[in-house]
């Protein structure tokens, strides 16, 4: 069984002999650890957990996130019926000295103590038949982390898949146990940061801008109204002038003058001007 490099990369894969040639007491320690690991059969597979690849609106919310299932990550045999695969959710500082041997359900790995005494918890434990390989391309294979609110405060359910306590960030990995011993693990994921809710008081209610249409409409109407008022005033003034002055200048009058007939001009017809 060839051991792949440990997750914090202390050792180079495949060069134990070169290390022996340049041996000093310090380099013996990682080699011993490596030998211990191979002796127990503990493996780290190369799979890295990631958020769900298909578009989902709820891929990350403020207290939950959605992971791809670790299909075809572990290559377990049919007869590994005691294998249970657990999801480890940890704060980033827990990654460097993470102890794989702590069993799920122990107080150091209880969800209710997460970020309140411990910095990692384990949940969503299943048997290998829930992650069959190869995966059917039609299936949507996701895991919703944080979906169970009923057991979030129930100390009797330390492996609760409860809502995350804050926006994180978090790192996750899958850890397979055979009975009470860890046998395989995946790589640690990238940092997963959840959404953070802005208080609604921060939303500006209005940006105070007026649209171009409104400004144009107001300006044009004001100008038109001003012109009409000016016209009305001009009308009033000219109307006032007219009533003072003689209207005969503007109006062609029909003036009839009656010619008074005296008896000596009786014959002449009346003349009209």
């Amino acid at each position: 069984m060839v051991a792949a490099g440990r997750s914090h990369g202390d050792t180079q894969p495949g060069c134990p002999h070169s290390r022996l040639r340049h041996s000093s007491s310090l380099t013996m320690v990682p080699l011993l650890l490596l030998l211990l690991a191979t002796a127990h059969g503990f493996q780290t597979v190369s799979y890295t957990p990631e958020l769900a690849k298909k578009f989902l609106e709820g891929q990350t919310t403020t207290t939950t996130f959605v992971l791809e299932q670790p299909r075809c990550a572990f290559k377990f045999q049919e007869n590994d019926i005691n294998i249970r695969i657990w999801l480890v959710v940890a704060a980033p500082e827990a990654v460097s000295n993470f102890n794989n041997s702590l069993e799920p359900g122990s107080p150091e790995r209880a969800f209710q103590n997460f970020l309140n005494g411990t910095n990692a918890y384990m949940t969503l434990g299943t048997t290998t038949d829930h992650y069959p390989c190869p995966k059917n391309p039609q299936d949507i294979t996701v895991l919703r982390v944080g979906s169970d609110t009923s057991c979030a405060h129930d100390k009797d359910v330390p492996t609760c898949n409860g809502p995350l306590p804050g926006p994180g960030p978090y790192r996750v990995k899958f850890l397979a146990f055979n009975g009470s011993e860890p046998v395989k693990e995946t790589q640690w994921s990238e940092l997963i940061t959840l959404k953070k809710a802005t208080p609604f008081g921060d939303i500006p209610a209005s940006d105070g801008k007026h649209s171009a249409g409104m400004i144009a409409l107001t300006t044009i109407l004001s100008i038109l109204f001003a012109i009409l008022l000016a016209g009305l005033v001009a009308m009033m003034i000219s109307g006032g002038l007219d009533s003072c002055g003689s209207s005969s200048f503007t109006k062609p009058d029909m003036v009839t003058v009656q010619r008074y007939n005296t008896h000596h001009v009786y014959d002449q017809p009346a003349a009209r001007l």
Partner: protein
Amino acid sequence: MAKSEDGIQILRGLLVFGNVVIGLCGIALTAECIYFVSKPQDFYPLLEATGNNDIYAAAWIGIFVGFALLALSILGIVAVIKANRTLLQVYIILMLITFAFEMASCITAVAHRDALTPNLFLKQMLERYGTTGTGMTADVTNAWNKLMVKNHCCGVQGPSDWQNYASKFRENHSDADFPWPHHCCVTDAKGSPTNLDACKLGMPGYYYRNGCYDVISEPMNKHAWGVAWFGFAILCWTFCVLLGTMFYWSRIE
């Protein structure tokens, strides 16, 4: 002399025509404003909650202005045909008053329409949706629920509104169980969600992805265009007719 007589006749004809058009436009404006005021809008409680229902005030003014325009156009036709100076003066003054009112109506409609930004509705929704009180808050919740179910939309800009901002809804409903209200889920014939888990995950086809702002703003835009810009067109025409009337007034005895 004959030429100016012809000119006056043409002007008289044009003014009568102009007043006929004003009268018809007045009827149209009244009818349009009555339509806007009487149409039941699902989201009226939302407008009430924002304190911005003055857009209806503009429509109410429009109704009365329309009637006034009709009456004054008839007065105008009579005054122009009779060539009576006093009557024409009365006509011009009353038309100016009506012009001022219609101007107010147009500007109000456009200004209030501009105030109805997405952020305004978003803030109201986050503050009031989901509260189980009585009165206006319950109205807002019911109005949003009806709006979302009927128009297949969620939130103002989308379901992410409930994720990106804190809200009254979030105070009473946990994020894990209600990333967004269940009214955003696609429902079957009986009204229950087809797949609640898929809806909570946000799987396309099981929740409504679009925001409701377009649904709200579309009638408001039509309303604003109808009242403000039609009113503006009428006022431009009225301006020309009034200028012509003033000129005519100055030319007759």
